[in-house]
């Protein structure tokens, strides 16, 4: 497939790897923000190829991992109601709530459906006028325009049996929160390429300046990720910190103005809880007041939700890169992919699930990984 195969070329990857090897004089800690990037890294084993030069810290850019527990519990409550068709992206189906998850709700008789696009959920609503259709609208800035357009269209068409449970989160406040934490180890960032396709790159220079870290807008294919890492390492070796765009083919500086316009119309910024991390001010989007009738949180009085997170789970610390998965006491024992205590063990790109696989292969953490060095 064009624009995909070329950026998966193993030979070119080899050259990028060699370049990184040749450039780095020490190991650097770089965080990739996006879960999709984490997935690509683990899937292809990219981190193994440059492990001496770069420690990749998997960031909180995974909606599975950061959607607040309270919201998951609300989703489960709504999905359990008779008459409701609850639609969701596949990613969210296995995320554990306080006591259950969408799969169990389905097995108990809930009408839970996986969709590829929020428009499919709207279509289900139009085709089932006697049912209430709710769509779980999670994601970062990449998914927000599709979700916004779906609500916008529902409004224009006068659809009355459709609503969205919204939990959008924003990348720049997350970077800020991570860099502001006292034990932050991150020395450079790979910014999420597709988020920037929508939002552009103008939110990042201020972060570069404030925290003095290189930020490189990076794509998702192996060559894109290696290139993003290469440029970050170059900057770090030279003691520089600036914003670079390594994903120019999909990221113009201005992003997508049409998408941003609709986002301004349909959403408004709000404080958001990030599971495992806590509330980050002004770090999310919710539906604007004029679209309130499409807001599932207002439409359904879900009563008192008392979210109960596992007291043992330390996914928040993993998400921010403070600890490695195997440093958590529950790792591999009480907490495994089969018995996940937190979202990072459920998600295919969750750091804990990824680590679990490699640990079984006998991957021994290197000395510096356990020493808790700077």
């Amino acid at each position, binding site marked *: *497939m*064009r*624009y*995909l195969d*070329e*950026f998966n*070329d193993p030979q*070119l990857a*080899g*050259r*990028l790897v*060699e*370049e990184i*090897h*040749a*450039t*780095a*004089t*020490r190991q650097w800690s770089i965080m990739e923000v*996006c*879960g*999709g*990037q984490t997935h690509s890294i683990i899937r292809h084993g990219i981190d193994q190829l440059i492990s001496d030069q770069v420690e990749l810290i998997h960031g909180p*850019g*995974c*909606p599975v991992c950061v959607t607040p527990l309270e919201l998951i519990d609300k989703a489960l409550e709504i999905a359990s109601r008779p008459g409701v068709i609850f639609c969701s*992206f596949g990613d969210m189906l296995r995320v554990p709530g306080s006591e259950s998850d969408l799969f169990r709700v389905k097995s108990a008789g809930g009408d839970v459906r996986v969709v*590829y*696009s*929020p*428009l*499919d959920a709207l279509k289900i609503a139009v085709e089932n006028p006697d049912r209430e259709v709710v769509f779980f609208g999670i*994601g*970062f800035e*990449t998914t927000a*325009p*599709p979700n916004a*357009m779906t609500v916008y*269209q529902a409004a*224009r*068409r006068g659809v009355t049996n459709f609503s969205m449970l919204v939990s959008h989160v924003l990348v720049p406040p997350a970077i800020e929160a991570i860099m502001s934490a006292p034990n932050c180890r991150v020395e450079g960032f790979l910014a*999420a*390429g*597709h*988020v920037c*396709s*929508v939002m552009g790159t103008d939110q990042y220079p201020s972060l570069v300046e404030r925290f003095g870290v290189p930020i490189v807008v990076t794509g*998702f294919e192996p*060559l894109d990720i290696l*290139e993003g890492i290469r440029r970050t390492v170059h900057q770090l070796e030279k003691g520089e910190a600036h914003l670079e765009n*390594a994903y*120019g*083919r*999909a*990221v*113009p500086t201005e992003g*997508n103005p*049409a*998408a941003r316009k*609709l986002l301004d119309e349909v959403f408004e910024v709000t404080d958001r809880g990030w599971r495992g991390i806590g509330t980050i001010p002004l770090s999310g989007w919710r539906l604007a007041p004029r679209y309130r009738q499409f807001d599932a949180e207002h439409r359904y009085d879900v009563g008192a939700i008392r979210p109960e997170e596992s007291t043992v789970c330390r996914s928040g610390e993993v998400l921010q890169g403070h600890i490695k998965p195997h440093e958590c006491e529950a790792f591999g024992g009480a907490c495994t992919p089969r018995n996940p205590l937190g979202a990072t063990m459920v998600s295919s790109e969750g750091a804990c699930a990824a680590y679990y696989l490699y640990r079984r292969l006998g991957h021994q953490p290197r000395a510096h990984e356990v020493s808790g060095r700077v």
Partner: protein
Amino acid sequence: MCLAVPGKVTRIWRSDDSLMADVDFGGVLKEVCLEFVPDLQVGEYTIVHVGFALQRLDEESALETLALFAQMGELDLEFGDPWERAASEAGLPVDVVSKTEVRP
């Protein structure tokens, strides 16, 4: 949150609600909403996320990037300093290696 895949626009049409396209992902066709990239033309490439085109793919930029990768390694072989590379691979800071000493 970012699984967006490149595809080629093969047909543009209008549904009741929006501008749509049939996008070809290497033999797999899917209907995609074009409202965010309305000036996309048939034959152009776009990245698609959850059924929506989010950006036009810039061919020139892609080719430049690939050319850059292709040149890597070659340039180093011709012009790079192999002693700097050896030092860095050994984990030594480059300026520790005295070039006058080790270079024949």
